[in-house]
């Protein structure tokens, strides 16, 4: 049965009251639905909201941003960091080599990375994942990630740590719709944490499962904060953005070894500039049996696994 529309615009008083009651109860329910916003503790300031992409920032803008970040970190953690924007060094192309003969699977690299790069402890983010592989296969489906025997290495196993390979043809860079991740001249694929929209397409695209997302607000123990920070590297991230290994950009662009290499007890990790013919990595690539993971995907990683003999 069709009702006639209110052509004349008249209504009875009862229906007016009823309509008002409906509308106001609906509006009240909607306002109450927004109640969780009471707990919102972090909302971007206007300046942060309008912040431009890293590649478009002038040096003055970068200085202002660095100062703002230092202020925020000081407010949150009670200690003031030293934060810089490290630029790539000239004539450098980083390469990482990992000696599978020597890696014993102790996972110290994982935790050193966490400490150096201010990763969230809860929810836990770890850039490096050590795979315990059975001898005789490269099939990662047979790997064990959560091994915890009393001692490593275990019999008939070898250990393969995987982190971002800073591929020369990075699928994550192709995927990002806003160019929040890109590869710099020295080979490090970086993320602009203030530009990322958190769509996680890059995480789906990565063949090495190297990218991590901040599913909640990151929690770092205040006393463990690493105060030597860089804009593109280990400054504390916010919830809702991606992050990943960046070869300890705050160390390597200052000429130092990354944290994972420093802590490795067996010296399995080698890092350096492939354009330098005298570097360890150049020697390894010339003289050792070297391979990359998932070569058929065509990513051309900068991360090489090799054997000693």
């Amino acid at each position, binding site marked *: 049965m069709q009702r006639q529309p209110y052509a004349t615009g008249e209504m009875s008083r009862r229906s007016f009251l009823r309509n008002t009651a409906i509308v106001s109860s609906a509006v009240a329910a909607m306002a109450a639905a927004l109640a969780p916003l009471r707990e919102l503790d972090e909302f971007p300031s206007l300046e942060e909201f309008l912040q431009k992409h890293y590649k478009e920032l002038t040096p003055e803008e970068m200085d202002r941003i660095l100062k703002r970040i230092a202020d925020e970190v000081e407010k949150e953690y009670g200690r003031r960091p030293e934060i810089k924007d490290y630029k790539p060094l000239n004539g450098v192309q980083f390469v990482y080599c990992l000696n599978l003969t020597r890696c014993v699977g102790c*996972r110290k690299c994982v935790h050193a990375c966490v400490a150096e790069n201010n990763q969230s402890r809860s929810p836990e983010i770890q850039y490096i994942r050590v795979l315990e592989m059975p001898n005789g296969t490269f099939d990662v489906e047979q790997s064990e990630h959560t091994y915890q*025997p*009393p001692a490593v290495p275990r019999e008939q196993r070898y250990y393969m740590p995987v982190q971002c390979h800073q591929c020369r043809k990075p699928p994550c860079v192709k995927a990002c719709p806003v160019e929040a991740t890109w590869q710099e001249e020295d080979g490090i694929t970086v993320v602009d944490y203030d530009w990322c929209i958190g769509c996680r397409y890059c995480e789906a695209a990565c063949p090495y499962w190297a990218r991590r997302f901040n599913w909640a607000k990151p929690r770092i123990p205040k006393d463990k904060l690493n105060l030597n920070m860089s804009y593109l590297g280990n400054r504390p991230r916010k919830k809702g953005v991606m992050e990943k290994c960046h070869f300890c950009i705050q160390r390597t662009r200052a000429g*130092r070894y990354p944290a994972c290499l420093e802590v490795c*007890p067996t*010296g399995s990790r*080698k890092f350096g500039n492939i354009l330098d013919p005298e*570097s360890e990595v150049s020697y390894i690539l010339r003289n050792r049996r070297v391979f990359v993971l998932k070569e058929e995907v065509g990513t051309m990683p900068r991360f090489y696994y090799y054997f000693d003999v």
Partner: protein
Amino acid sequence: MTAETKESVVLTAMILVFVALYGVFVEDLTGRVRTPPPPEPTPAWATNTGTVRISAAEVIATDGDTSMMECYVCHTEGERQPLKLDSEGRVILVVEHSDLIFGKKRCLTCHDESEEASLELEYDDDGRVILPKGHEDLVLRHGEYGRNNNCYNCHNPDKLDELVTRQGKKYPLSESTMLCVSCHGPTYRDWLRGLHGRTSGYWNREMGEARREPCAACHDPHHPEFPHLRPAPAPRRLHGGQPQAFAGAHRREAGGDGDGGSDENHSAQTAEEPEEG
């Protein structure tokens, strides 16, 4: 019921439902969001950049406690200390050098002080220590088949705090690396290139120095096989309670928990050195 009445009923019901929803939202009845648990502290040894041992050379270089290296406190200078051999000509390790018998460890490294009374060693007819069960792999072992089971392969019998190569070249303790080199040439070649062993500091030698670790910083000369280490805690999943990743054909060992297991397995030697600067 006329259409008008039905409409009134429906609209009234809607008002009540909205009011109820208001209550539900304000009281958060659809379920409070669980915040992630507080982070557990990472054990300090998991981020310790120190080497697995401190070599004699390092102790000397850093003016450390060299009391264990003063041989002539017990031995007589000038007098050659003969080796005790058993019936088959194998060297019998003496109790005074029990750190050689049990790798680099003394009993109390693993055992509790309260157990000390039961830590008596037993000897066989030759005077050789009878190894307690489970300690078989800790014995002095430099090379397979007991190749270097003779102290004077490396130590100078006439001057015990000096090292000597098979060719007779002598080195002080502070230059122990060159003794290693006398047999392990290819490894030394790799070490010089930075391929073998640890490096720390600056990859860019123009911006700073790199520090190399000598052989004995990682390899106990009397038991050079690299010690097994306790693995640092395994990764956790975002949503706990998930089934664990498949472990090939083997499941995780029982007893292997987040603490790294018990100390009962003597093959677990952990790196507990002071932190490196």
